[in-house]
């Protein structure tokens, strides 16, 4: 028998994504889903940029893209531009798609590395169609013909997370999720099992449930405050612990990508939406004062601010266990990784998927939690390593912050990956883990981590043959990208579809 009553503690992106997905998947069962949230407690909602997996979530729930985009002020995202990371003045785009194609059975990047050692070659990004489109401010939906380069990339969205939560709330409430306004002040534990039996609201009301999903944000009302699960800090690798968010008006053109510009002691995000542009400065309080951080942000944004600065504090790391007893932590209550690679919403989505896969029954087999925790730990650690790479792979020595990041000791799991790439251009691949070879290549090469040797077997293809293949690829990418509609035109077309 399934558990009967689910209480989601906290709304926001995590809470309403969970509610909507559970309502969709469990709609045919007698499970009762409630969500408690308080208008007094603010939501963080800075995770406005996503990765392509969000499309799968939306499709599963049956959302129409045009309606979703209209409701959330959404824009298309072909990747993330990283500015000033390897060195000041550098720029590269991490797209959702592969670079080039195999030449003579040898992975493309090896042929590129090999030719690069012999003479000038086009930038690595010339071999990515979505990067070429992004640089031109153009967008087109990927195609389905496996033979076409249009099939070689994917895309995500940038949207207003607050509006997305509202959109999801409507969906969830229409499918029977009961929303309750209130502030949780206490939780009652059962002595023997340590399970949470009920939560108490400010007005004294008690809410009982079988399964609690903690979407209460950084505080972790249940997973931490009630259950004292403990937190694994990663601040020695990722020293940023503050952020200031500050929206401003859009520029004339709306970029189909997110931008992350490295600063002296952190980085500034720029996420263009339809109606405004999200900005923020992620920085380390150990290296930068709050006043200087705001000044940096004000200097980095292109238009006057549209709101008061929203200041956030966080500790990078992961809850030691994300499912304890009958409490599952989803969202910021489960851990925090800065939004450098737009992974926050993705980690929420993963946790929801795994909770559904391992949905508990009234027998409460502890293996369900163990497997959930094993899988989520994997994902967190692999995302963590990929983010650390951005900080570590730099030649910047213009601040104490970068000196620290450049010289810090890495997790063994990352040290090993980088050593292999530096020596021989090998990207370590895993079965699980969201960032695949093209992502690692984009960051390594974009941040000047260049292998000493290419694959020696690349030599089997004659140089002129490689050069000809490379020239054909770059010419084709340019021609195709030039033919894409502008991002604004693509958005207008979608808006017309939504209005129809």
């Amino acid at each position, binding site marked *: *028998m399934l558990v009967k009553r689910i209480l989601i503690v906290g709304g926001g992106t995590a809470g309403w994504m969970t509610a909507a997905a559970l309502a969709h998947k469990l709609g045919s069962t007698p499970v009762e889903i409630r969500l408690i949230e308080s208008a007094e407690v603010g939501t963080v909602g800075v995770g406005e940029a996503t990765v392509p997996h969000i499309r799968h979530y939306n499709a599963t729930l049956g959302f129409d893209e045009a309606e979703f985009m209209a409701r959330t002020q959404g824009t298309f995202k072909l990747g993330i531009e990283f500015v000033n990371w390897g060195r000041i003045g550098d720029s590269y785009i991490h797209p959702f798609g592969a670079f080039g194609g195999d030449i003579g059975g040898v992975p493309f990047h090896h042929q590129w590395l090999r030719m690069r050692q012999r003479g000038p070659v086009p930038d690595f990004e010339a071999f990515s169609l979505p990067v070429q489109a992004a640089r031109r401010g153009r967008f087109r939906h990927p195609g389905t013909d496996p033979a076409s380069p249009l099939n070689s990339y994917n895309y995500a969205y940038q949207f207003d997370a607050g509006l997305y939560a509202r959109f999801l709330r409507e969906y969830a409430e229409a499918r029977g999720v009961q929303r309750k306004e209130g502030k949780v002040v206490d939780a009652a534990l059962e002595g023997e099992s340590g399970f949470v039996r009920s939560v108490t609201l400010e007005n004294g009301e008690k809410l009982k449930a079988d399964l609690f999903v903690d979407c209460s944000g950084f505080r972790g009302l249940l997973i931490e405050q009630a259950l004292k699960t403990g937190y694994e800090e990663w601040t020695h690798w990722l020293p940023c612990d503050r952020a200031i968010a500050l929206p401003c008006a859009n520029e004339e053109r709306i970029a189909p990508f997110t931008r992350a510009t490295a600063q002296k002691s952190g980085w500034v995000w720029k996420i263009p939406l339809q109606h405004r542009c999200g900005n923020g400065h992620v920085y380390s309080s150990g290296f930068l004062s709050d006043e200087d951080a705001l000044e940096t942000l004000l200097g980095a944004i292109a238009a006057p601010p549209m709101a008061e600065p929203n200041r956030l504090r966080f500790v990078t790391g992961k809850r030691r266990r994300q499912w304890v007893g009958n409490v599952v932590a989803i969202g910021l209550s489960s851990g925090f990784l800065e939004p450098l690679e737009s992974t926050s919403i993705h980690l929420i989505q993963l946790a929801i998927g795994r909770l559904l896969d391992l949905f508990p029954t009234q027998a409460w087999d502890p*293996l369900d939690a163990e497997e959930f925790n094993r899988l989520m730990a994997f994902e967190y650690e692999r995302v963590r390593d990929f983010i650390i790479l951005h900080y570590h792979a730099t030649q910047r020595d213009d601040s104490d912050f970068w000196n620290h990041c450049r010289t810090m000791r890495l997790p063994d799991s990352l040290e090993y990956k980088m050593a292999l790439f530096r020596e*021989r251009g090998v990207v370590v691949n895993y079965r699980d883990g969201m960032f695949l070879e093209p992502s690692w290549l984009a960051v390594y090469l974009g941040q000047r981590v260049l292998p000493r040797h290419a694959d020696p*077997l690349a*030599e089997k293809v004659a140089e002129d043959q490689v050069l000809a293949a490379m020239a054909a690829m770059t010419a084709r990418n340019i021609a195709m990208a030039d033919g894409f509609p502008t991002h604004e035109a693509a958005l207008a077309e979608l808006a017309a579809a939504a209005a129809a």
Partner: protein
Amino acid sequence: MGHIRDIVIAGGGVAGWMSALALANARAGERVTLVETGGPDHSLGPFGPAEATLPEFAAFLIANGIDEDALMRAARGSFSLGGAFSGWAGEGVTWFLPHGETGAPIGPVAFHHLAARLRAGRREVRLADFSLAAVAAQSGRFARPSADRRSPLSALGYGLHLDRAGFAALLRDRALAAGVAAHPAPLRAVRLAGDGSIAAIETGPGEVAGDLFLDCTGPGALLIGGALGVGFDGWSQWLPCDRAIEWSNAAEGVPPPYAHSGAFDAGWRRMLPLARGQGEALVYSSAHLDDAAASAAFGGAAPVPVAFGRRASFWRRNCVAIGAAAALFDPLHGTALQLVHSALRRLIALFPHAADGPEGAEFDRIQLAEADRARDFLILHYKTNGRKGDPMWDAARAMAVPDPLQYKLDLYASRGRLPVYDEELFDRPEWIAVLDGQGVRQRRYDALADAIPEPALMQHFGRLREVILQAAKQLPGHGAALAAAGVRA
């Protein structure tokens, strides 16, 4: 150590010549020499005289330009839709491990959960009844799968059964044509360089020097074990058999399109049908069956001692072990051959700039894990056996198994969930087929299965079965399929 110019492969046989051919095709000017040491081909272990491939092996053939029909003609090849396992779940009980897909999900609910729900309602369900490969195998029919996902034939998968000697001969011809130098000579000694790496293989009056050496000498592991002293980790606490006898059987008529593995009180017997004749192997525990008795009962050939296990490392200094020199597997399924394929793919992807570079450690990380996970899959067959009253099998049921396997067993028993780790040769469908066939039942099933009305569920199963029976009826007989491939008249 400098750039690699000379690759030297020690030992011929299937593993040696597969390596030679793959490297010859992938190389960028390096010379490839194979020192053929002669003797019986135990490069994959002493379990011939036939070998089984898994469906993934097709990628090796394509990558190396080998036409499947040509291979089958050279090696008396026969198609395989999977394997029948008799006596494992109990005396007189048979189950089938099909290649390809079994059943179909309803929405997000996996097929085995649907089956579990029906069983909870006391209905009998045999998973293999919902596998086209299993049904076709039973009725002696075969066709290659369809690439059209809408066709029921797209659910088919298949492997091959090949005569080992014919297979090796074809690989040898192709490798020689691709420029591999064959050096038929005994392996007298291995000469080490000052830094402890291998300098040359001494073959009598002469020697063959090289920069990178592949040890394809079989379980003896003359290079990596003998010369470089890499240790061996045995698996006898989990895989109880320690003897093998191989022989040929002149079976007549159209061969069945599947392998048969029959368990008996002291081990098991493998039958791999070929287009003409049948390769047989007996794998048993000498503690439970007398060698003389075994030999007398099975073809008269001398039993060969075998030790299942693997080297502590597959790549040491400038030497890479491939095949049985790296790991010897209980020959259930086509594990050995598939791991050679995987090792070669990895060796080519990680081909080192210098033989003692960091690539070896990455090769080891992946290949050792893959070998251990494949080992777990083999142990599964023993751990979950149902032969009550046979001392060898009783002990196997009671044994403690490696943690990753125990975790899988626990999760499956709890809720039919099967974690798949990073480097797994066998994927979920294979694991589920074995667990289910052996009679392991999940305590809970996906609760969403309960939301499906029973008539809809019955209709789903009925329709699947109907589609499979219809599709199977239209398949040609195995004999006709072999004739079309040019293997049988």
